[in-house]
């Protein structure tokens, strides 16, 4: 039976269709100003790309910040549950899930059975979210997707005192004035966001294996900073951004 999960995030909508346990199709679309319109487009795209139609799908489950706002289903699952389900399906040994999206950061602790034991969320503050990296990339005048690779060329750690994205931007301006090399500033940005995430992780307690998911996990600079700070290996699945939607699709299948 086909089931689908929709993850309506602050910035992007993710749809995952599964057949049994396997991902049959997936789609990422900007949430944009009108989420319903964007959802329609996302479904049309996934239908065109996979040949699977909404009508063929047995059950749809929604997750994400906008999960209650969709016409496609009234079945919802929290982001925490979705992330846990998805992560464990990808790797049974995962005990800590770190989910960093555009506007929220989450740390989830799991038991051996994949059940959620504890979680910590930052939803009030842009520091430790994708929005922070975007703002900093703009301030540095570097395209977002280049920020990560650039940071890997850093030769020294530069301290950024500010946690707040607004203050960090001012601090960046001062660093730029002082002719700090761009790679070092890029690294400082990732260290700053990693700091914030690590404090979330420490609240629930760190236990290996650790999996990093969400859009920000695509940023190699951030992944490097987190590994360095946690002093552990971190698993970043290939479809890191789709794990929430995958988890919702699994939930729809009763798994």
């Amino acid at each position, binding site marked *: 039976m086909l089931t689908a999960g929709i993850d309506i995030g602050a910035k992007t909508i993710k749809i995952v269709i599964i057949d049994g346990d396997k991902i049959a199709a997936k789609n990422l679309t900007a949430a944009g100003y009108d989420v319903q319109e964007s959802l329609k487009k996302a479904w049309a795209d996934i239908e065109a790309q996979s040949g699977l139609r909404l009508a063929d799908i047995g059950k749809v489950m929604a997750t994400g910040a906008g999960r209650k706002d969709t016409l496609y289903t009234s079945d919802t699952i929290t982001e925490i549950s979705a992330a846990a389900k998805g992560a464990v399906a990808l790797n049974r040994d995962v005990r800590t899930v770190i989910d960093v999206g555009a*506007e929220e950061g989450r740390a989830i602790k799991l038991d051996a059975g994949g059940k959620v034991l504890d979680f910590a969320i930052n939803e*009030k*503050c*842009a520091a430790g979210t994708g929005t922070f990296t975007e703002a900093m990339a703009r301030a540095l005048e570097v395209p977002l997707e280049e920020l990560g690779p650039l940071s890997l060329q850093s030769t020294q750690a530069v301290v950024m005192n500010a*946690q707040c994205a607004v*203050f960090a931007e001012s601090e960046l301006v001062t660093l730029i004035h002082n002719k700090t090399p761009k790679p070092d500033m890029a690294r400082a940005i990732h260290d700053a966001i990693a700091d914030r995430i690590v404090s979330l992780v420490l609240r629930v307690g760190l236990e290996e294996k650790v999996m990093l998911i969400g859009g920000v996990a695509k940023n190699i600079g951030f992944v490097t900073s987190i590994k360095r700070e946690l002093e552990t290996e971190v698993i970043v699945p290939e479809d890191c951004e789709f794990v929430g939607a995958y988890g919702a699709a699994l939930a729809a299948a009763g798994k």
Partner: protein
Amino acid sequence: MAEEYWRWTESRWTDLGLSWKGGEIITAGVDVGSVSSQAVIMVDSRLYAYANTRTGSDSPNSAINVMNWALEDTDGLTLDKIQYTVGTGYGRVNVPFAQRAVTEIACHARGANFMYGPTVRTILDMGGQDCKAIHCDDKGKVTNFLMNDKCAAGTGRGMEVFADLLKVSINDMGELSLQVEEEPPPVSSTCVVFAKSEASGLLRAGWPKEKVLAAYSSAMVHRVVSLLERIGLEEDFAITGGIAKNKGVVLRLEKELGVKALEPKYDTQIAGALGAALFAKALVEKEKGKKK
């Protein structure tokens, strides 16, 4: 060149009715903050002159610049005739000509005591990058304080971000936010970054600027009120810092607290520097006392 909406007006002032030449104790206080810097000159117990400028990316020069500007219209008064200077603010260690540094909290309380009188007990300082709630006694001595310096919500930087977003001069934001017929619900986020995204959405949905400003001002007030509730509000209440000049925030704050703030007679941004100048005076008096 793009217009800079965030550029608030710098100012200076001299009490032209006063002459420094007859003064026994002439002192100065310099407050170098992350966003603004002030220099205050006192002649005996009177406020003689002050200047309020934007801090550059370079604190030592900021102190010198603001001090020079304060000295500009002072009938020949020069730095060497000032007997004692106290530096404060986060850049207080970067006031090269100061004899001593005193913490900004202590200076703020002293300054507010002078500006608002001995009845003031709770001071809310909404500065460029931090927000402080200070309790003091009738002599302006600090009895308790709480500070948020980690988050832009409730600070001048937050306002600057909104000035840029709405393309409204920061000096006009207060008045504009009051031009709404009905108070809209506050933006849901106190985080400036998230509030800004939310505000962009509201603008796209057709909200006029004044409505968006009103919504943001309310959100900012909520943030600040929770700081005050944590420390407790004891009257009389006074507001210092740049945002005290924003009528829209002040009126909403008074409404939510159910308390009226004392009316400022001086530029609300000089409280720190003023307190520093008063500390300088006390230090001169102490030295003179020792010599006798």
